[in-house]
């Protein structure tokens, strides 16, 4: 029996029925990780995993255990696990050891989950391809000459390659959904405020969310319900109790925004998404053509706001408090040299853009204007979900205009790399939840369907996604 291709649900049953132990399961996954050539892990937390597996087995034999007890997972290396390295895939934090657990890790540990290791990402979660990692690109398990997608590259690739049962990623402008789409797995970007970010290395604080990546919708739901809710250590987290609820495709109003099917989309991606929408219609859903006119500006808006916030957040890496320190004569030179050596190209580029856009004389033209446009985009979604005569329940659209790109294909063309995020950034700007789920393939390459819901309607997204899963398989 191959233990590494089971869903959380099936693994849980197997543990319950004593078909295998958490230790056997953990060893099977560790074995796969060690043999892997995908570069999806930056570090393996073997001693922690084996200890947790042993503890889990005791809990399981006592009969009193939870859904995630004994189930192995992988954690994006921007989320802190106490006592283990947390590098954010940056030379800046190459030797940084996390001094405390992120709240999501605390919650998973309370459930008795097993942490296998820390997964690769674009440096400081900045990138759409996974190629910006200071420790090498993550390869796509479906075609090793292609990228896994970013920034949660290792989190998606490791689930797809059965190197873990599930993983956590983070999503600032598409960083859970894009790699999930490229690797053919299911990933949820929760509503802003649904999951605590305490212990996540900050990138764009008005956009960042932690979320799960797994083999199917049900698993994503199990993880999400374990990690969501209020945390006093993150003031933006909301009192939110996830409640599973059944929604039917029959009579459901699905919005299809015309702006998501314009020039630039790969015709094969469009075909797959349109066919998924047709299947929903055949199952009784009402398809409503909608318009989100602000979407045209979303990418420019995002690439101002996110770098502005990043330039402020990353100012803390000063060579004094933690991380890489290049000794120099005086304080200013210590700052200059530590940052100059510690940060990679993309991180520097974004700090530069953010600093420029926030500098006196340009603030109104860039940052202030971007905030206005952000409100415009938010209002588009309010109209679509609440105010229009034909208010919709959910929005169906692609995750990315293209399937996984070749490694190196866009590394010299910054703007064309940014354009891969064109369908994902609006969701972060509006603080909405959205899922990416496999909808089909172009040759070997998976293509994801994106389902966007209104704030805190994860239960509607998950219920309908799970119905779509049956229709699409």
């Amino acid at each position, binding site marked *: 029996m191959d233990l590494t291709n089971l869903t959380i649900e099936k693994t849980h049953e197997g543990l319950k029925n004593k078909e295998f132990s958490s230790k056997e399961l953990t060893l099977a996954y560790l074995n796969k990780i060690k043999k892997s050539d995908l570069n999806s892990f930056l570090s393996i937390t073997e001693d922690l995993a084996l200890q947790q597996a042993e503890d889990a087995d005791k809990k399981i034999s006592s009969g009193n255990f939870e859904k995630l007890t004994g189930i192995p997972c992988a954690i994006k290396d921007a989320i802190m696990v106490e006592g283990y390295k947390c590098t954010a895939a940056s030379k800046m934090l190459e030797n*940084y*050891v996390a*001094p*405390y657990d992120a709240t999501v890790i605390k919650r998973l540990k309370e459930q008795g989950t097993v942490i296998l290791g820390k997964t690769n990402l674009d440096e400081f979660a900045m990138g759409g391809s996974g190629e910006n990692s200071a420790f090498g690109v993550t390869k796509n398990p479906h075609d090793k000459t292609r990228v896994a997608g970013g920034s949660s590259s290792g989190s998606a690739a490791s689930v797809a390659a059965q190197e873990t049962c599930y993983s956590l990623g983070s999503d600032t402008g598409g960083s859970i959904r894009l790699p999930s789409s490229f690797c053919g797995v299911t990933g949820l970007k929760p509503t802003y*405020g649904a999951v605590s970010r305490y212990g996540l290395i900050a990138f764009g604080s008005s956009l960042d969310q932690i979320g799960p990546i797994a083999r199917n919708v049900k698993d994503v739901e199990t993880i999400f319900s374990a990690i969501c809710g209020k945390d*006093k*250590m993150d*003031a*933006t987290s909301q009192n939110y109790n996830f409640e599973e609820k059944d929604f039917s495709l029959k009579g459901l109003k699905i919005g299809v925004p015309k702006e998501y099917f314009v020039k630039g989309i790969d015709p094969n991606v469009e075909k797959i998404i349109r066919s998924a929408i047709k299947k929903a219609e055949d199952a009784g859903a009402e398809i409503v053509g909608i318009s989100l006119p*602000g979407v*045209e*500006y979303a990418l*420019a*808006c995002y*690439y*101002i706001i996110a770098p502005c916030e990043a*330039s402020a957040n990353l*100012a803390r890496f*000063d*060579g*004094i*408090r*933690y*991380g*890489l*320190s290049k000794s*120099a*004569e*005086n*304080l*200013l030179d*210590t*700052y*200059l*040299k530590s*940052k*100059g050596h510690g*940060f990679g*190209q993309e991180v*520097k*580029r974004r*700090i*530069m*853009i953010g*600093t*420029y856009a926030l*500098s006196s004389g340009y603030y109104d033209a*860039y940052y202030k*204007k971007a905030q*206005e*446009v952000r*409100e*415009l985009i*938010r*209002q588009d979604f*309010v109209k679509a979900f*609440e*105010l229009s005569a034909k208010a919709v329940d959910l929005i169906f659209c692609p995750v990315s205009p293209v399937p996984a790109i070749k490694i190196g294909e866009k590394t010299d063309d*910054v*703007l064309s790399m940014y354009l891969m995020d064109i369908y994902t950034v609006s969701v972060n700007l509006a603080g909405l939840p959205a899922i990416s789920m496999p909808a089909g393939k172009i040759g070997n390459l998976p293509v994801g369907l994106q389902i966007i819901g209104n704030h805190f309607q994860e239960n509607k997204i998950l219920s309908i996604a799970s119905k779509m899963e049956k229709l699409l398989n």
Partner: protein
Amino acid sequence: MISKEDVIHIAKLARLELTDNEIKKFQKDMSEILDYFNLLKKAPKPKALPDNKNLKTESLRKDEVVSNFDIREKIILSAPDKKEGYIKVKTVF
């Protein structure tokens, strides 16, 4: 196109040491990206929505509390240069 001097000035504000190659590369990249941002000039100003649909931000931060969650020593342990429970800093001038 932004000038080389602009790039050097911004890098100084950001406390980033850049190599000559990086300055050249960023001059090109930033110019392209800033040109793309011009798109926003076309965007209309948002109008206010019916009252209950406007963004409320005050709720996000009002309950921020000070806690006695003490990890002072662990935090200091991460500092590259420290002495007797304090983080050491280079002279400012």
